[in-house]
């Protein structure tokens, strides 16, 4: 017997490797190292980096996108993608602005936002889950459609005049430098962690992403789960839209343009397999912080945004390529 398989099924261990070995081999571990390196680099590069208020301001660079990224992570794990998220943000913001003109108060604005976000998500979900169309194409279509509707409604105008109480979501502080957005981001991260890793819903999402047919045969209601994921993505886009609109204090149809690709980058950097099936919320959480720190650190050096994007692009490719290159090199050494 040359293989390492135990001769007897009862000798088979639960797990091949212990928790420590699994952690060291994990993607999150690599990301944490990257995060620490970037943090260290930033402290060296700019004297303004280590300042509580500055760090607090810097969180706005990523919190709203990261909220959507968590939902996007689930969508991508299930083997689909939602490119319409930024357009949902625009449409939600527009409908809130519209409602403000009609004199709605803050609580109703929130309800309207969530409802519109969920409706957009349900539209995507219907096309993808119920009609079985490829999500990448459907959501390229709704990307144009949703923002297009915002343009039809708003044209060259802008909505402003949000109630004062509305400003809290994007501008409020819970305690000292801790912003409301930051707290919300943490809570959402925790909820998504539990949802993906600790519930049977999360397990179904993973199974679907790996093999939708086998998942169906295993009694998972695949269309329903996918539909719910798109609705979830719509709702998270709505929550991000509330924060962003509150932070800007106004709505234009061009709000959040181009976010979809940044969010996908964040998700992929977080170790979510773009082909579906695997990934962790912790990874996305760290990736969001890494991207926030990179942009903030470079911003302090007055590096133009487009040059920053070179860094994020390189970061994305190297972080994905690194483990592959290392694995190849190790194999070559072993031979």
């Amino acid at each position, binding site marked *: 017997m040359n293989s390492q398989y135990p001769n007897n099924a009862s000798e088979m261990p639960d797990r091949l490797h212990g928790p420590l070995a699994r952690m060291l081999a994990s993607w999150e571990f690599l990301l944490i190292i990257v995060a620490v390196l970037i943090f260290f680099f930033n402290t060296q590069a700019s004297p303004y980096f280590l300042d509580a208020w500055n760090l607090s301001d810097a969180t706005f660079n990523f919190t709203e996108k990261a909220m959507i990224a968590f939902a996007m992570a689930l969508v991508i794990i299930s083997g689909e993608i939602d490119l319409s998220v930024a357009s949902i943000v625009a449409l939600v913001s527009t409908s809130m602005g519209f409602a403000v003109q009609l004199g709605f108060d803050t609580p109703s604005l929130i309800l309207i936002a969530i409802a519109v976000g969920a409706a957009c998500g349900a539209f995507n979900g219907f096309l993808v889950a119920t009609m079985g169309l490829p999500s990448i194409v459907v959501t390229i279509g709704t990307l144009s459609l949703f923002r297009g509707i915002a343009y039809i409604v708003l044209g060259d105008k802008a909505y402003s005049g949000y109630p004062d109480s509305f400003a809290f979501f994007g501008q409020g502080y819970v305690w000292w430098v801790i912003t409301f957005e930051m707290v919300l981001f943490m809570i959402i991260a925790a909820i998504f962690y539990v949802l993906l890793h600790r519930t049977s819903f999360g397990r179904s999402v993973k199974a679907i992403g790996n093999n939708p047919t086998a998942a169906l045969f295993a009694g998972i209601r695949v269309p329903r789960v996918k539909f719910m994921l798109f609705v979830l993505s719509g709702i998270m886009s709505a929550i991000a839209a509330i924060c962003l609109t509150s932070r*800007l204090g106004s709505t234009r149809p061009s709000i959040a343009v181009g976010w979809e690709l940044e969010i996908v980058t964040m998700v992929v950097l977080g170790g979510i397999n773009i082909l579906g099936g695997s990934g962790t919320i912790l990874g996305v959480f760290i990736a969001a912080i890494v991207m926030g720190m990179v942009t903030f650190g470079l911003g302090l050096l007055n590096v133009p*945004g487009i040059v920053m994007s070179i860094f994020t692009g390189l970061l994305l490719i190297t972080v994905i390529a690194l483990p592959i290159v290392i694995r190849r090199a190790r194999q070559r050494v072993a031979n």
Partner: protein
Amino acid sequence: QADDMRIAIVVKALGIGFFEAAAKGAEEAATELGGVEIIYTGPTDTTAEGQIEVINSLIAQKVDAIAISANDQDALVPALKKAMSRGITVISWDSGVAPEGRQMHLNPSSNSLIGNMIVKMAADQLPEGGDVAVLSASATATNQNIWIEEMNKVVGNYTGINVVATVYGDDLSDKSYREAQGLMASHPDLKAIIAPSTVAIVAASQAVSDAGRAGEVLVTGLGLPSEMAGHVESGASKSFAIWNPIDLGYAATMISYNLAKGEATADAGGEIGMGRLGSVTLSDTLDGAMSDPFVYDASNINDFKDIF
């Protein structure tokens, strides 16, 4: 820090010739003042969110003053308010911010003068009048909309001039080009395209030349001599106007410096010095105009095309 004052010039987007010229003016002012460091920055696409990120990093660097040309007059207000609350002097120039988000706004010229100028340039070339159309930048650009509004107020003074359409090229050259083509197709009698945007005027001139209608359909509006020189030569455009962006950057820097130093305050009716350009007087809404727009045509363009 060697310099005792840091002034940030925040523009709509990096890489636009007009703003690069303004940055030159800002540097000129800094040299003149001494001890001033200019941070020339901005997003790479013309979005409010991009500018907010830039503003946040400027706040973090504790600059002394921010002079901004805004992509959105409302959306920047919270971020700029925060800057002011951290003791930073904030003014807007070129494209304004709502009054609560800045201490004062510097118009390159008065809006009514510009509005009048862009239609006057067309009317001067069309003694018999005719159909004209407006090709603007993005539909959300504050200054564009105000000029078009001002223009529409005075258009009645020019007999026979008839504004048949207003379209938007979003400051993208391909879209502006296509819109210009569309204008020529849907209005066969079109006599002039008024493009109060530096991107749109170039694209419109190109579209008119390509259609073989240079001289027939006149392009005018606001443009940079360096970008328009070729089109004046080809005859697609006879004249266009612009204020001097170098002066504008210079003036914005001078005003920021004076406000930040406490040598002037921004009050209604008050005056703030602008170095070699004299001083600006503030209106009730705390804005002021730098100077008249300047008209360029075949007679003077060669003197300016290598400058900006």
